């Protein structure tokens, strides 16, 4: 296992990014408003949030895989492998050579649905060989050897024969393993996993998580893990970032965030996890009040204002600053910087 110093400099830094979707019939929608994330080599950052909060959009934007109607309006994504000056991915053109050199080789991605994310009419071996031929300029035969070795590594039995099968001939778990082999083919420095276990059953899910953890130890890549499952976060992540309606409201180490959630949304999430307890000690789960507003109804200030039990005067109008809480733990909440009037009084 490659040794990674604790204070390793981040390999990918997303700063104050905003992504806007435009459509000819409606006003623009700012699906991602304020995202700050840092990824370090050998570490896993879990990005959690409910459906539609912009976590997948954020993940896809790192490889610039968003549709034509989406644009990165503000912010930067600094990718800094090794000692070279960092590249700002947000500034690259979507089909440009520098970006294509990063896609698949430096940063790669695993998708949620391995069935539909693999082409049904090409063998899985062919779909992986292709990457090695493209990025490492291998001959087809050498590429196939590497693919077979990768299959062994991700635990696909009968690797050589499996490389010639089509996605529909494999089980869901094997398909996701093939997908992982594809993502790791060129030993990328960053792996983005967009809900890789959501479509799998629970036992397979656990196997895939184990595999990802072990491969991270072998390859030493940074991992951005998108999920809505806090149990999965606890299992795989070193750090966690919580997203709500386009804003990253809190980022910190898993221990800090789980032990001392600092944003009211994170606190609410934590108290909505069912806990095992003796009958006498059982408490009712406390759901978060209200529903997520549509992005166009989002208040100018903190997005959580409409549902926050602690909301006070500046919340609806002023966007909270990113406040450092020590040990790399950050949160965006006015409660951390000023005291509500009632409390002071």
């Amino acid at each position, binding site marked *: 296992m490659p040794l990674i110093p604790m204070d390793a400099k981040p390999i990918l830094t997303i700063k104050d990014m905003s992504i806007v979707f435009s459509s000819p019939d409606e006003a623009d929608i700012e699906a991602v408003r304020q995202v700050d994330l840092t990824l370090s080599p050998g570490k896993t950052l879990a990005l959690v949030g409910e459906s539609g909060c912009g976590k997948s959009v954020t993940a*896809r934007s790192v*490889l610039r*895989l968003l549709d034509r109607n989406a644009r990165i309006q503000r912010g930067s994504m600094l990718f800094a492998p090794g000692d070279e000056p960092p590249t700002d991915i947000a500034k690259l053109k979507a*089909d440009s050579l520098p970006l*294509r*050199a*990063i*896609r*698949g*080789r430096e940063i*790669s*991605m695993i*998708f949620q*649905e391995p069935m*539909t*994310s*693999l*082409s*049904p*009419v*090409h*063998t899985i071996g062919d*779909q992986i060989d*292709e*990457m090695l031929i*493209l*990025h490492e300029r291998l001959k087809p035969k050498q590429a196939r050897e590497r693919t077979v070795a990768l299959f062994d590594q991700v635990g696909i039995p009968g690797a050589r024969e499996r490389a010639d099968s*089509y996605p*529909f*001939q494999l089980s869901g778990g094997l398909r996701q393993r093939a997908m992982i082999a*594809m993502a790791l083919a060129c030993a990328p420095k960053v792996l983005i996993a967009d809900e890789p276990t959501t479509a799998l059953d629970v036992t397979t899910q656990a196997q895939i998580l184990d595999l990802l953890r072990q491969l991270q130890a072998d390859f030493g890549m940074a991992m951005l893990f998108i999920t809505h499952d806090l149990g999965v976060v606890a299992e795989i992540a070193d750090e966690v970032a919580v997203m709500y309606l386009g804003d990253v409201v809190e980022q910190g180490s898993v221990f800090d965030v789980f032990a001392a959630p600092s944003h009211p949304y994170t606190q609410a999430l934590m108290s909505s996890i069912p806990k095992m307890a003796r009958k006498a000690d059982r408490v009712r789960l406390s759901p978060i009040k209200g529903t997520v507003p549509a992005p166009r109804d989002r208040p100018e200030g903190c997005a959580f204002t409409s549902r926050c039990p602690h909301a006070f005067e500046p919340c609806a109008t002023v966007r909270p600053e990113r406040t450092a809480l020590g040990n790399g733990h950050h949160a965006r909440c006015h409660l951390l910087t000023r005291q509500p009037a009632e409390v002071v009084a």
Partner: protein
Amino acid sequence: MLGFIIRRLIAMLLTLVAVSIVAFAIIQLPPGDYLTSYIAQLSSTGDQVDPRVIENLRVQYGLGEPFYIQYWKWITGIVQGNFGQSFEWKRPVWELIWGRLGNSIMVEGLAVIVMWVIAVPIGIYVAVRKYSLGDYLATVAGFIGLAVPNFFFALILMYLAYIWFGTTMGGLFSPQFETARWSLPRIWDFLAHAWAPVLVLATAGTAELIRILRANLLDELQKPYVTTARAKGLPEWKVILKYPVRLALNPLISTIGWLLPALVSGSVIVSVVMNLPTAGPMLLRSLTTQDMYLAGAIILLLSVLTVIGTVISDILLALIDPRIRYGSK
């Protein structure tokens, strides 16, 4: 794969038997037979017809016999390569049709190729650049191509050729090549004549193909595997050609089978207008004169071509789509 092909071939033979029965039934459908229309023709010109001669002819051709006996005589003859005698031309049917059918296959085959060569790149372009200027232009041009009847387009083309170049367009060969053997100059002469009918025949089909391909490809472009391919770092053109286009072509390939008969029946009027020696006008004429063996042979051969085309497109589909290849075990 071999089992798949064998099963398809057996199914094809059974279909052909059914088709031959239907074809024979169709040519028997109109009331009367060739002799009644022959008599009508003769008496309209004032000739007297000896009923005994008619009776002899009827016995000779077996026209009074029940349907299944006539069919049996006809089909056993065909299996031995004897398509019967044309009443009207007084010549063996085979001699009459083989040249015409060959012309049909050549002209309409070329039309199919032209259709694909034009439609596939345009279809890909308009799907990838949806709602662009090019998309709208192709859509407008496509709908005009669909809406204008082929024969009308042929007339316009002939008119323009006469006005601008002073040439009369029509036929497939110059007189000196009409009956000559195939040679380089004859091929050249054929192409010089054939481009116009090929273009005319291809217009409507091209427009249709572009619409189908555009719709299919728009569906496929949304699929997650396209994003996967982009995430690998492949150049955009390669992403599109290797993945979504390949899947979007599947439904088109399954149409190859019935393109041919659609073209043949659709080309009858164009062939009459442009004076093309193809099978279409001959079929039309033989049906009006109730020249049943000639009509039957043409209908049967067109059906055979359709069935063979379908089998070919099935096999092609199985070749390019493993889900069909392995799914039909």
